[in-house]
């Protein structure tokens, strides 16, 4: 990684942390708070691409692991990795990677802004919803013993919120691409 | 100090930032002036190898900025336009120590050097502060300390008084005057550089004037208000 790539990843990690400072909204019964922070994960992939985006997310997780209050609601420390929702945290890294991987390949500078936005949306949904929930639901089912079905049904309520986040991430990603293009990633 | 440009120029893509020029700088206090976008920052970045010459060579005391990049950068410190972006660790003391730690010096040596540099700039009271909380003037001094702690021979400052209030500006001016290191200052603050040993003016990527600050500032005024 060049110094610039390293700094870009670190700055994006700072953005993800800052998004977590916005107040989270609790919805429903399942203990997954709705936060702007998970949108930051989609944004990392969409804007920085697979490699740098994943590094950005891993940095946030590392900071949390060493006990800094970087996750939404001021959470941090190894305790957050021992919760039933940990699957979603671990899934972040894979979500950012998938989103970035698709975004890098689908979105081209020559396309119209609508095509680019759609490309980013598909990438954000694939990473930030499909991959993320695969990790989150599997882990939830495993650690509480409530079974995949219950875990899936319980988590479904959150999918619409995350699809909305994917829309915002796609629009924002398109606008950033126009103002400060970093894709396709050079490194 | 001996900075030499031998037909050295820099282009980014097809844009010429600095046209090839040949020049030798040996004075202790040198000013670089010019309009925005005139190439002065690129010129300064060529001195410590941050920008590589696309033609010719740049040498510092005989060391090539491309071939001996690391040695050159340890001799030439650089204070960027926005000191905010220069402090890269949260706590000032840690940031200042960072440049020394990468040289794998013993902890005690690092600590002593950090204390010495803090004392030199009279900013011991800032050591444990978070970089984010420092004022503009404090940040500028902190950035200077973080660079000078590694004992470079030459320090380049890019608009050190930009956006500072009068008191902070005066403090930076005094600090600059008292530096033992050779200094190269890029500035729009003409009063700051009046008593320098030499001044260079860049215009549209070319070295357009070279002489005493008095002469060069007169040329600059002509260009700025034709």
């Amino acid at each position, binding site marked *: 990684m060049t110094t610039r790539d390293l700094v870009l990843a670190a700055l994006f990690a700072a953005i993800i942390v800052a998004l977590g400072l916005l107040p989270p909204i609790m919805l429903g019964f399942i203990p997954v708070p709705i936060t702007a922070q998970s949108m930051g994960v989609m944004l990392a992939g969409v804007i920085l691409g697979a490699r740098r985006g994943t590094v950005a997310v891993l940095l946030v997780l590392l900071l949390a692991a060493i006990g800094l209050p970087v996750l939404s609601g001021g959470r941090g420390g190894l305790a957050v990795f021992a919760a039933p929702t940990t699957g979603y945290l671990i899934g972040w890294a894979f979500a950012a990677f998938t989103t970035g991987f698709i975004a890098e390949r689908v979105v081209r500078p020559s396309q119209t802004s609508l095509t680019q936005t759609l490309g980013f949306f598909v990438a954000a949904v694939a990473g930030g919803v499909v991959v993320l929930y695969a990790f989150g639901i599997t882990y939830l089912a495993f650690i509480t013993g409530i079974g995949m079905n219950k875990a899936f049904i319980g988590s479904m309520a959150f999918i619409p919120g995350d699809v909305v986040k994917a829309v915002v991430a796609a629009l924002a990603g398109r606008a*950033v691409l126009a103002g400060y293009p970093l894709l396709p990633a050079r490194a | 100090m001996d900075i030499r440009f031998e037909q050295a120029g820099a282009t980014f893509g097809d844009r010429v930032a600095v046209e090839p020029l040949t020049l030798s700088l040996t004075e202790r206090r040198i000013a670089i002036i010019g309009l925005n976008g005139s190439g002065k920052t690129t010129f300064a970045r060529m001195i410590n190898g941050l920008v590589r010459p696309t033609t010719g060579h740049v040498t510092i005391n005989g060391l090539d900025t491309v071939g001996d990049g690391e040695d050159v950068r340890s001799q030439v410190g650089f204070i960027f336009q926005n000191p905010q972006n220069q402090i890269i660790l949260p706590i000032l003391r840690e940031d200042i120590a960072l440049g020394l730690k990468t040289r794998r010096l013993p902890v005690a040596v690092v600590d002593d050097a950090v204390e010495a540099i803090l004392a030199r700039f009279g900013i011991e009271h800032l050591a444990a502060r978070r970089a984010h909380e420092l004022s503009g003037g404090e940040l500028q001094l902190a950035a200077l300390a973080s660079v000078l702690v590694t004992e470079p021979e030459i320090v380049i400052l890019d608009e050190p008084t930009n956006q500072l209030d009068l008191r902070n500006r005066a403090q930076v001016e005094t600090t600059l005057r008292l530096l033992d290191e050779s200094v190269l200052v890029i500035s729009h603050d003409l009063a700051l550089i009046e008593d320098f040993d030499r001044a260079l003016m860049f215009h549209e990527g070319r070295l357009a004037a070279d002489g005493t600050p008095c002469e060069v500032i007169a040329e600059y005024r002509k260009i700025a208000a034709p």
Partner: protein
Amino acid sequence: MKSLYVEGDSFFHRLPPRPKLILLLVASLALFLTRSPLLLGLAAGAAALLYSSLGIGWRQSRIRLRPILLTIAIVALATLVLNSMEEGIAVLLRLTTLMLLAAAVSATVPIGDFINEVTLAARPLERLGLVKASDIGLSVGLVIRFVPEVDSRFQQLRQAHQARGLKVRATTMIVPLIIQTLKSADEIAAAIDARGIRGQRQARNSEDSR
């Protein structure tokens, strides 16, 4: 962002960072080996005792621990309803213990020491060519350093919206926030290279240098 470190002279403060981190790691595994309310209760009591020896104070502690405690309570309750009383209590005690231990470690290890530990832990990965160990510490420092900058940019943007009578929308806030923040990357990277912080690495001309 405020580091959770608190000045102090307790026993746990004086203990070097590594044993503390190892203790936390071992505890996070060991606590899942038992479901006994007695053992877990003892562990929680010991963790509480340790935490209270640090002199953090009630108000600070409430600010620090409440959000995590809330999540733990909800999780424990959910487990209690969906599984059993025993499981619910086990989850509550386990996670509370971990939370207190983690909080105790965070409160007694300064960021610099943390970075040193993480860097050392990454050395084996470096030998595999996966990462440059010193980069990890550097990036962790960078993130901590720039969170407050991002946050104050966010506040400035919010005020700019208000001053111009614009409605604060996700995209109109996030896009300039990201562009402004990422644009400073060039200068920060140049500063790191200029100070020789990453060692040998050669500077490279970039389109964005002026």
